[in-house]
Each structure stands twice: as structure tokens, then as C-alpha cells.
């Protein structure tokens, strides 16, 4: 399989491999059959694996997740597709009240290997409810693993690992990166919950995940020209967070900036900043800064650029960090 693949294709291949290797794996979702999903992530899979393994569901998200829980109780490994980020909320109760908690309630006697795939976040000029970043809601809920790949290799392997996991996994796909291509290797080189140094650097650490990793890499490249060496850590897993990797990086650089699309207030960045402050207080040259969305609904597409962190906003935060 090795070669250059788009993230979309890498995910499609991961689903195919998972369906091939385990007859208990099922795909469920709206329009995932003939249409191949609105983003074509399941393209061709119903044709090859049949309608009983690649299931076009009725248009009901609570139903999709709720029945996936039942199928998992019966020994299946459902991978459900939520069509767009903003449509996961009708399933929110099933996810946070049921999916997340059942393993603990059953004292470990039942396992819920359900993967919930969600194309998330903005940058594609969509109408409302098609650009939301809701990772904090899920990461806030114990019992769920939450991950988000940023490149084709991780997309492929993290999805296979998520499907193989006996825990429920919220798998957030950065939809605006679906068409970005990258090399997909033959093996997973990191466990699902490990962070990855996407670019080494010495002067400050940029922490990002999913769609913002590319923005941070671009910012680091631009900063290099100005003589600043920025390290970019791709979090990959939002629950659990690989704090050891973050701590090591921040202790080396002395500065940290967390970048995400979701509103800053009570977002992932708040948790990361608090923990890094606790763990690295005496190594920090500046407070941990955050760059993200505003405390406002995701705006109409013609002004989404003002909402979304871009290279300039990241570099502006870097400047602020150095100004301390």
C-alpha cells in the first residue's frame, strides 16, 4: 500500500483493511453505501463487502450510535460515520451517557469497541453546522478516547488502531485536509495515544492537532526565515494526552503555544496550558499561550478566515511569547 495517498484515500484503505481482517467489523452511517459517503471515505466498500457490512442507516444519529452500542454488545465492531460535525449532537446523549460509561458501569464485563468517525472543523466554506470543532465536549467525557490525525499516514494507521481498540473512540477527521496527500507507510510507527514531533525546534513549542498542524508547520517554516526555531508537536490523541512528550518539548524550548480551531474558552488549550504550567513552571519563559476560535458560533463562511487561526495569528502569539 505504501505510496502517496490523500487522507481520504488513506482512511478508505484503512476501512477496507479493517473490514477484510475482521468479519465483525461493520460500517454504519448515512449515505455511506452507493454514494460512498458525502466525502467518499467509504467509496466502493459496500460494493465489495455487501449491504450487511456497509450499512446505509436511516437518517437518525441517535439511532446510529445507539444501535452501534447494541451491536457492540453483541460482539460486533461498528465504525459509524457521522456525516458532519454539527450533526453529532442528536447522538450526543448516546455517546456521553451510554457509550462512554457502559464499560465502567458493567465493571469491565462489557466492551464497546465503537469508532465514531466525524469529519470536523472548518475552512471549506460550508454553511452552518458543517464546520464545528467539538473535541472538548468529547475529551471532557471520561470513557471516550478522542483522536485526530493530521496526515495521511496517521489517518490510515490511527483509524486501524481505533477500530482495533476495545474502547469507544471518537475519531475526528480534519475535513479540510481530506485531499492533502502524504506518504503512507506499511506500519503504524506510534501507539494511538502518542504525540509526535512534527518538526524539531529549540525556541518555542507549538502544540496542535488535526487541521492546525499544517498551519503550525507553515508558521514554523516562516519563523525559521526570521531566525526563530519552532518545534511543532502534533498531539494526535486528545484523550488521553501524551503529557510526557509535551513536557519534554516545553522544558527544552521554554515556551508553549497551543493552537486549535475550537473556541479558546474552556477548550483543549485551557487544559494543556494548565497542566504544562503545573509541570514546567520553572522552565517557562512565558505563560502558555492559546490561539483558537472566539466565544461565538462558527461564523458564516465569508468571515471564517477571521475566526480560524492562520499563520499570522500563530506568529503573532509567538511574538507575544517572546515579548515576556
Amino acid at each position, binding site marked *: 500500500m505504501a505510496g502517496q495517498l490523500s487522507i481520504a484515500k488513506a482512511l478508505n484503505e484503512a476501512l477496507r483493511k479493517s473490514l477484510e481482517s475482521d468479519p465483525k467489523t461493520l460500517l454504519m452511517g448515512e449515505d455511506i453505501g452507493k454514494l460512498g459517503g458525502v466525502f467518499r471515505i467509504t467509496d466502493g466498500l459496500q460494493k465489495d463487502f455487501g449491504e450487511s457490512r456497509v450499512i446505509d442507516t436511516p437518517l437518525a444519529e441517535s439511532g446510529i450510535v445507539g444501535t452501534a452500542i447494541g451491536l457492540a454488545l453483541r460482539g460486533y465492531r461498528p465504525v459509524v460515520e457521522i456525516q458532519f460535525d454539527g450533526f453529532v449532537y442528536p447522538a450526543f446523549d448516546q455517546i456521553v451517557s451510554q457509550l462512554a460509561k457502559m464499560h465502567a458501569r458493567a465493571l469491565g464485563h462489557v466492551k464497546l469497541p465503537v469508532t465514531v468517525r466525524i469529519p470536523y472543523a472548518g475552512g471549506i466554506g460550508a454553511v452552518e453546522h458543517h464546520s464545528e470543532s467539538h473535541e472538548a465536549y468529547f475529551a471532557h467525557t471520561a470513557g471516550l478516547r478522542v483522536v485526530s490525525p493530521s496526515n495521511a499516514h496517521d489517518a490510515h494507521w490511527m483509524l486501524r488502531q481505533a477500530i482495533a481498540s476495545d474502547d469507544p473512540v471518537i475519531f475526528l477527521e480534519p475535513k479540510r485536509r481530506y485531499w492533502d496527500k502524504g506518504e503512507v507507510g506499511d506500519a503504524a510507527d506510534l501507539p494511538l495515544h502518542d504525540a509526535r514531533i512534527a518538526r524539531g525546534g529549540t525556541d518555542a513549542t507549538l502544540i496542535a492537532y488535526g487541521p492546525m498542524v499544517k498551519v503550525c508547520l507553515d508558521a514554523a517554516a516562516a519563523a525559521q526565515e526570521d531566525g526563530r526555531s519552532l518545534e511543532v508537536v502534533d498531539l494526535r490523541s486528545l484523550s488521553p494526552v501524551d503529557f510526557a512528550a509535551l513536557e519534554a518539548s516545553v522544558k527544552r524550548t521554554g515556551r508553549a503555544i497551543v493552537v486549535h480551531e475550537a473556541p479558546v474558552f474552556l477548550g483543549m488549550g485551557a487544559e494543556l496550558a494548565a497542566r504544562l504550567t503545573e509541570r514546567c513552571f520553572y522552565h517557562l519563559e512565558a505563560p502558555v499561550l492559546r490561539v483558537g476560535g472566539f466565544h461565538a458560533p462558527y461564523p458564516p463562511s465569508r468571515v471564517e478566515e477571521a475566526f480560524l487561526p492562520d499563520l499570522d495569528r500563530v506568529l*503573532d502569539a509567538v511574538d507575544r511569547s517572546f515579548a515576556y
Partner: protein
Amino acid sequence: MTVKSTARARKKAAPAVPDNLPAGSGAQPELIQLLTPEGERVEHPDYPLTTTPEELRDLYRDLVLVRRFDAEATSLQRQGELGLWASLLGQEAAQVGSGRAMRPGDYAFPTYREHGVAWCRDVDPLNLLGMFRGVNHGGWDPNEKNFHLYTIVIGAQALHATGYAMGITKDGTDDAVIAYFGDGASSQGDVSEAFTFASVYNAPVVFFCQNNQWAISEPTTNQTKIPLYRRASGFGFPGVRVDGNDVLACLAVTRWALDHARSGNGPVLVEAFTYRMGAHTTSDDPTRYRLAEETEAWRAKDPISRLKAHLDREGLADEAFFASVEAKSEELGLRVREGVRSMPDPDPTLIFDHVYAEPHTLVDEERAEYIAYAASFEGGENL
């Protein structure tokens, strides 16, 4: 039209359809029709409708203008002026018929495809395009024309409509509400919950389901095993299936349903049996999941040519009338085209407007920070 008695309404709750239609037999349950695809007027005992020639011509004009508006929006999307468009092509009769059945005090809760209903509620068509262009999330005051904002989250508005109708009951007025949704939406929990609330509280709400046969790529058979209108009986209220391509039947049935609801008899489910002639939205490719023959078969039932055939057959409109409609349609097309092209991008500080009704320190702080940041760029001072 007079209000029907409760007894009569109850009669509708048990439609004359066998309970177990053989799957795939093609058997069609009762479809209320007042105008055949050939344009012939037929009578239905339960849904009498008297129309003047002028009313028929008005309906025709509505259908043509609504279609023109929709076509214009589709091409504006192709030209990059709109980010997305959800076409109503083929569903004009269902929307105009139901829209014209409403009284001024009635209230409509649409999905994202009810451009024809908006037309009937006298909402400026340009207002509908802001959301699709990406300059706003709604763009009109719902209370001005009793036409709520478009709802994208499937089925959510069915509950809002029901709650609004419950409010009407509390206020003791004789207004009624229509909740629009699709066949796909009928699977959502919110829609079932709306049915339950409306039924239990006898809310004056008409659930108007446009069954256009598809929910993106999924046929109605992926949502239900029984004809949708029959869902209603399980919740204890009447359900009716109407020919959704027949504007007269849609008008008569919806008027009856609204009157039923406003008279204290509780909700009605109207299933308008129609067809989405175009793609789900401009991002969709229907050739991946449906056959051209199916679309062609429905073309023969076109709502506009059917009414035109009737006007011609009965000699109710002359050349001059059709020419005037054509001229109006051109005028509308031009207005929409120019209006969209000159629709300015909003100021980015729009992000912070209206997040809350009362001042909120976090939003104020972020707005100030944003303004300072934007001003730090060259040319950004005038924000």
C-alpha cells in the same frame, strides 16, 4: 373553505388502505389529487376546492416565479456566487400549494429547501441567499412574515413548530403552524417527539412532509416500511397523502389540515408525494445512486406543465398572461442575479454581534482584541 367537524377529521385517521401492502408490489395508497398530470380537474369528496380563474393564474405565476428563482440560484452557485444551493426543482407545487393555504397569522417552520414557501410568505428571495452565499446564518426576522429561519439540522424544527403551536393554544387564538421536513427527517427522534407532543397537547400544527423520494442517496424505503402518512395514526392523529405535484390538491389538503388544527382538533400529518428533480444540493451527484429513467418518469408529472395544461384546456389564460408571467420571471431573475452579485461580505466583527442578547464580557474582550489585531495589519485600520 369551512372547518370540518372532528368526526369527519377522525375519519381520515383510518385511511382506506390495506394495512400490509405487499412490499415492492408498486401498489399506491390513496393519493389525493385534484388535477391529473394531463391537467384535467377532478373532484375529491373530502377536499372540495373552488377556485376562480384568477386564483388559478396566480398559482401558476407563483410556480413559475419560484422555479425561476431556484434556477437562478442554481446557476449563481455554478458561477461561484453562492457556496451551495439546495434546489426545490420539482417540489414547487407542494410548497406553493401549502404556502398559499396559510393565513397571515399562521406560522411556517421550514427546512433549508422551502424557497417556495418563503415566496408565499412574502420573504424577499434575496434574503434566502445570504446563508448560501456565506454572509449570514439566516438574514431575516422570522416574526416579520411568520416564516422561521431555515433549519439545517434535520427534524429539529418539528419540535419548535410544535412548541409554537402549544403557545398558540395557551393564547387561545385560532392561528396554526406548519412544520416542513423531508422523508429522511421522519426517522429522526425529534420528529417522533414532535408527533408525541403535538398529539398529547392537541397542538395546532400541521406536519408537512415533502416526500421527495430521496434523502441524499437514500431512498424512502431506507427510512420506513409503511407509507409515511400512516405514521400519524400510531400517534393518534390523521395522516393524508397528497399528490405533491398537484398544486390544487396541496392547497386544498393543507387548508383542510390547518383548519382542522386551528379548530382545536390537534395535529395532522400531510405527506406530499413528490420528487426532487435535481441533485440534493449543488455538491451532490445523483447519478451515483439513482436512475435517469426514474427522474424522467417524474418529469411527466411536472407541477407547472400540469397547471398550464389545465389553463390551456379550460381557456383560462391567454397569450398576454403567459407573456406577462415570462416578463415577471425575467425581472425576478435579473433582480436576484444583481442582488447576489452586489451582496457585500460582512465585516468580520459580525462574528461577535448578537452572540448574546445582553453584554458579555468575554465576547467584548475578544472583539476588542480582534479589532486591535486586525488594525495591526497594513490597511486594516479602518475596521
